[in-house]
Every structure is written in structure tokens, then in C-alpha cells.
């Protein structure tokens, strides 16, 4: 079985984003960029399935600027086999991304697509669900455990009340949550080897996908800042202030 793993290049999770003065978005110039953390978990899960003998080939896909190739290289260094870079300058919405991925699925025929549950830049949490819808496949979102048996996929999901297990027909789409696994670091020899792994370059037009925006961003601003508070000397003062000043207990 082949697995497709889409990976997104996003602002590194340790960087505090800064809103641009002209309110058009967040400043990405000279900012450290990395693979979306949930996508790292997706790549790791695919590798573990390959190590277990369930999966034969892992294809990593990224959609975005030329630099997204670095994100694919990271996936290849971790253990993916080859890459597809869909180059575009356009700011895509999850719906567009899902349509491009659907076309790639039609070409590659994977048995499973594993994606991060959300990207930490736009926080949309949509692409996997949309891809599943467009393919007519079932979806296992927020996965913390996968088990494949008898052509069915059992997905244990992190839900608001705890954990939920569902059984899906295959092929299926899975999105990862934090506790699915702990992604490995790529070793230096594997980083060198990854440089020789093939990456195909494509464009949205190659897949016949119209990327006209449906959403217009009118402005991006900083959230209201909280006023700096006070330090209290001890627990007794804290309780006193919470009761007499804030009136919350």
C-alpha cells in the first residue's frame, strides 16, 4: 500500500508571529520556517507503517513556494521515498489544497492519506476533511492511534470528552493529533541521502484546479493586549484580591 503525506511549510512554532504594519498579514520575511508540527507526526506515522511492513511507499507532497521543497526534503530525510512539489505563489485556501490533493490521489492511488489535523499558521483544521469529502472516502480526524486489520482501519480519536474509536473502510483519510507518535529527527546520513531522492515539480494548472480565492482577507490586526497585572506576596493576599478586588470567588 502506498501512503500520501501532504506537508506544509509554516512559521516555526517557536517564533512569535508579528502582524505587518499595513495590516495585510503576518510578516514572514527573515522568519524561521519549518514543517507544520502535525505534518511531522503524519510523516512519522507513515514511516512507522512502512517499518511494520504495512506500507510499501511514502510520497510527500507540498504545495506552495519553491522553498516548500525544503519541507519535502525534511520529510524525505525522515524516511519518505519521493516528493511532489506543487509550485504556486497564490495564497491557497484549504478547499484549493484539497482539490489539488484529490487530483494527486487520482494519479498515485494511495490506500491512505495522512495529514496534520491543522496548520499552525491559518489554524483552519479543514484540509483532511475536505479531501475525504471530495474523494468520497471516510475520515479519521484527530487520530491518536491507528490499527489496520482485514481491510478496515480503526482510528482512535482525541475528542472533547476523551477518546473515541471508529472503524473506517479503506482507502481513507487520517488527520493526526499530538499523541499519535513522537516524530524522529533526521540523521545526518539520512539528510544526505534525501538529497538524492526524486522530487517532481508541478503546478495547480497541471491538475486543472482553479485557485481563485473564495475568501478575501480585509485586514489582519494584533489581538487586544491584556493589561499587565500585579504580583502578590503570598496565597492569603491572592485569595483576598480574588474575593475583594476581582470578585470572582
Amino acid at each position, binding site marked *: 500500500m502506498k501512503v500520501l503525506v501532504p506537508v506544509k511549510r509554516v*512559521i516555526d512554532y517557536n517564533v512569535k*508571529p508579528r502582524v505587518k504594519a499595513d495590516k495585510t*498579514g*503576518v510578516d514572514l520575511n527573515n522568519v524561521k520556517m519549518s514543517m507544520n508540527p*502535525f505534518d511531522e507526526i503524519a510523516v512519522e506515522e507513515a514511516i512507522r507503517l512502512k517499518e511494520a511492513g504495512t506500507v510499501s511507499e511514502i510520497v510527500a507532497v507540498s504545495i506552495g513556494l519553491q522553498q516548500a521543497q525544503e519541507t519535502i526534503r525534511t520529510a524525505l530525510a525522515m524516511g519518505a521515498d519521493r516528493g511532489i512539489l506543487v509550485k504556486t505563489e497564490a495564497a491557497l*485556501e*484549504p*478547499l484549493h489544497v*484539497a482539490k489539488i490533493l484529490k487530483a494527486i490521489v487520482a494519479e498515485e492511488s494511495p490506500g491512505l492519506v495522512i495529514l496534520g489535523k491543522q496548520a*499552525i*499558521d491559518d*489554524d483552519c*483544521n*479543514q*484540509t*483532511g*476533511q*475536505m479531501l475525504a*469529502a*471530495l474523494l468520497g472516502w471516510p*475520515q479519521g*480526524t484527530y487520530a491518536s492511534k491507528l490499527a489496520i486489520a482485514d481491510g478496515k482501519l*480503526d482510528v482512535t480519536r*482525541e*475528542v*472533547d*470528552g*476523551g*477518546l*473515541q*474509536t*471508529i*472503524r*473506517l*473502510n479503506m482507502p481513507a483519510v487520517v488527520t493526526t493529533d499530538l*499523541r499519535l507518535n513522537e516524530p524522529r529527527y533526521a540523521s545526518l546520513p539520512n539528510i544526505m541521502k534525501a538529497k538524492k531522492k526524486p522530487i517532481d515539480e508541478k503546478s495547480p494548472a497541471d491538475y486543472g484546479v482553479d485557485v481563485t*480565492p*473564495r*475568501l*478575501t482577507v*480585509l*485586514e*489582519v*490586526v*494584533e*489581538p487586544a493586549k*491584556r*493589561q499587565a*497585572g*500585579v*504580583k*502578590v506576596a*503570598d*496565597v*492569603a493576599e*491572592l*485569595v483576598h484580591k*480574588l474575593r475583594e478586588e476581582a470578585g*470572582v*470567588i
Partner: protein
Amino acid sequence: MPVLVVADHDNAELKTSTAAAVTAALAIDAEVHVLVAGASCGGVAEASSQVAGVAKVLVADAPHYAEMLAEPMAALLVGLSDGYSAILAVANTDGKNFMPRLAALKDVSQISDITEVKSADTFVRPIYAGNAMATVRSSDPLKVITVRTTTFEKAAMSGGSAGIETIAGADDPGLSSFVENALSEQERPELTSARIVVSGGRGMQSGDNFPLIYAVADKLGAAVGASRAAVDAGFVPNEFQVGQTGKVVAPELYVAVGISGAIQHLAGMKDSKVIVAINKDAEAPIFQVADYGLVADLFKALPELAEELDKLPKN
């Protein structure tokens, strides 16, 4: 055209988050309908009809809606969508699961996690873990929206008298089935709707120390949360996690204990009315958002806090 809100419920009880989504819906159009999809959910339909501002309640009662799995839910909503200009759901793990599936089936872009309705087509939503707020306008004929319910006032849960209409529902697409739930015992208030939340972080050092948090929480009638670090370390289960990718809470009082205050955690709690931080590291970023900061060893401070709370006159 009217607007449809998908009720958040567990087949027995209508969640108050639904009332917040109704408020968001009323800002889009004056005619708001509520869909109750579930199994043996008549009581929830009854409760929904009493929410102020709701004009009509639709009930799809069938076994395949019991767990709100994405495939049957999206199929049901697609069938209803032509009569509505917008469909809204609560941005919890149910709504976030089935709504994008609906959006893609309708070939529209979803607007996730809105915090404000500017007009019928323009909404505000947080991006970058709430470090930026984007105002977006949708050109799609149908708006598919998930609502961050902590930022909307809840419509009154009584006083309404909407008619209840039973609808046929749609066939189960047969792609997925429910196996089991492993849900936590609910002995404390629910995290996302609690008036007070007490959360523990890495500083708790072990799950064995969380009873110190529980003791304080129970004296306050509070829910218990945690930072990602505490969940990843196995101190507490995943459903405790507050943050960018966990639960978003905005209680009247949030007490962060042994939590350093990573931006991912702040994203989940910085809209709380009053924030208290207890941390032994005076430089911890959590103090920058705290109204009241106590620099102290939590292993001393928590038992003291429990004791001080005991001294308070009972209301």
C-alpha cells in the same frame, strides 16, 4: 434566507455552546433554525425549541447520527443546505470534524472558529494561535462556519417557543462506523463551559501531584485543565489540554499552576476574564498575561490555597 445552527449535544442534553452559536447566527440573519441530529434526542429538540431567538427546530433522529460521525452528518447537512444562506456549528471536535466535509461537498470555503460577525458575509477569526485576528469576507453563496463559542454571549436557554419539525434525514453513506468511546468520568464541570478553571503544567512534575490541583478545583467548583506539556508527559488525559490545538476556554477565573505560558497555551486561555499564575520562575511568560501573579513553589502554594479557600465564608 434563514440560517441553520447545528445543535451541540450528547443526545441527552443540549450544550450551552449551542446558545452562543445561536447568537452568532442571529447576527447573520433574523431567522435562525436549529438542527438536532442524534439518536433518541427528543429532549434535546425540546430544549432547543426554548432557546430565545430560534424560529424552528429540525430533528433528524436516527441511530447513525448517535455519535455525529462526519460522513452521515455531512450527507444530512448537504440535503438541507439549499434552504440556508449559512450553516453554523460549534467549533468543538464534532463541528470541526463534519463541517469541512460539508463545505467541500458544497464546493465552498469554510470560515473556521469565528469570534465576531461583522456582517452576513464578513467575519473575524484568530490565526497564528490567536497572535493575529483576520477579518475575512466570503464570496461563496453558502457560508459554512464554525463558531468559537467563548466569544459570543449565550442566547437565553428559555423563553423561546419554536416549532419542532421531524425530518427524514439522509441514508448513512456506510463508510464509517462507531466502535467505542473511552470518555472521562464527569465529576467536575465541563472545561469549556466552567466558570472557573484550574490548570496544571509541566511544573506539576507528575500525574501523582494533580490531586493538589483537584483539591483546589473542588473547593472552587472549578474544571481542571492542563498544558500540552502535562498531557504529553502523561500526567493527565488529552481532554484536559487547553491551547491552540486543544480546548479554548474563557472562564471568569483561570488559574495557571506550574505553566510557563507558551504562546500555544496562551492561545487557549487568554480571553479569560481574570488570570492567576502560580509559578516559581518569576520570568515565566505566563506572568505577562496574568492579572495576579504569585511567584512561589506550587507544592507549598496549592495546599495553602486550599486552606485559605476553606476559611472563606460560604456563600
